[in-house]
């Protein structure tokens, strides 16, 4: 009996917390939110931010933590640079991916890889926040602790094999503060952005490896 009560209490607590955490937006809230994000992301010409990446695999006792810096410049220059615990940098530029792995350099042409092209678009979209494409994704919108949350389920079968769902968390200024890529219900990659600087001067030459 005691156990049953306890279970009931636990279930109630979880569902109450669950409700408090995420609340579906109304149609008008969605419209206003999308409008805000569009306005902000249109203003973004350059962006630089620190990030911490947490790789969560359900069977591990601890998330795998890596961190570094990301810079972005309109329309599609992107550098993702891991600094800890190893040096690894990846640049998306003119249909190419340039990799520098602890000094070892390589390049991949993504012009002929549809899936890489999509992933590239997706990364740029998730950083700037502007990826509300109903043709590509089934999107749902939530409010949670003063932040907004958009969940994207890919419609493309090839993409869906890699990513089950993408969740973007926006702060009050309508910029992305967290990206969560879900591979399955148990395993995901969570990237938290910190010290974001918008529209500082970033030279094109930085996007080389």
């Amino acid at each position, binding site marked *: 009996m005691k156990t049953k009560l306890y279970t009931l209490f636990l279930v109630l607590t979880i569902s109450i917390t669950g409700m408090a955490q995420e609340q579906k937006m109304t149609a008008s809230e969605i419209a206003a939110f999308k409008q805000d994000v569009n306005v902000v992301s249109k203003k973004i010409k350059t962006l630089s931010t620190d990030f911490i990446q947490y790789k969560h695999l359900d069977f591990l006792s601890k998330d795998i933590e*890596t961190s570094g810096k990301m810079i972005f410049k309109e329309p599609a220059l992107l550098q*993702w640079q891991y600094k800890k615990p*190893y040096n690894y940098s*990846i640049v998306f530029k003119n249909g190419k991916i340039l990799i520098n*792995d602890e000094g070892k350099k390589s390049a991949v042409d993504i012009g002929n890889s549809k899936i890489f092209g999509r992933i590239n678009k997706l990364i740029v979209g998730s950083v700037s926040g502007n990826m509300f494409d109903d043709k590509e994704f089934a999107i749902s919108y939530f409010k949670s602790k003063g932040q907004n949350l958009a969940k994207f389920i890919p419609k493309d079968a090839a993409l869906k094999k890699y990513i089950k769902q993408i969740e973007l968390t926006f702060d009050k200024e309508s910029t992305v503060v967290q990206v969560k890529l879900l591979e399955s219900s148990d*395993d995901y*990659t969570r990237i938290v952005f910190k010290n974001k600087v918008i529209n500082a001067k970033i030279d094109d030459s930085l996007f080389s490896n």
Partner: protein
Amino acid sequence: MQKSTTLFFLINCFLAIVLISCGSVTKNYTPKKLDKTSYEVSYFSEPKTDYVYKTNITVYGHEMSGIFIAKKINDTTHRVVFTTEFGNKLFDFEISEKSFKVNSIVSELDKKILINTLKEDFRLLLKKDYLLQEQFENETENIYKSEDGDRDNYLFISKKEKKLEKVVRSSKTKEKITITFTLENDIFAKKVVILHQNIKLKIELNYLKSE
């Protein structure tokens, strides 16, 4: 007569080559009386430890990098996952001495020959218990031979530190896979290199220190 002598000579040469190749793993070592009958490798055996390594794979001149993750999930089985630096899972296996399950693999890597190669590599890498049949030595190392079906595994153990530094998996005639360990301490390898002799494949694991 001339002909048969030549033939005899050729057969002898052939036999000599086979015999030399046979003993290739231990050819510079002296046989010795076996001083133990079993050996336990503890580099991947602690159930509480997440074994996470930054990994470089070189296959026929192509390079690929990512994160190798292994974890003992029960008495017999390890979960082995390989992801990109971004965190995308490339493959996810469950592997024990007798069983093997593919939880997921991206279509680009979903080739039977590749999966079988990785299965053999990881089984050897994660193997904990060896039964020993023969022993050899030189000045610095003891080598133990452990039969494993139609293959033999050779364990190279330093005399000074008494640590396993190398495992060679060999057929009756040829070395196939060599795994070398660089140790952090008695039970943990900070660097592991898996090198294939018959195909151009090298897997290098460097322990990912969390800060």
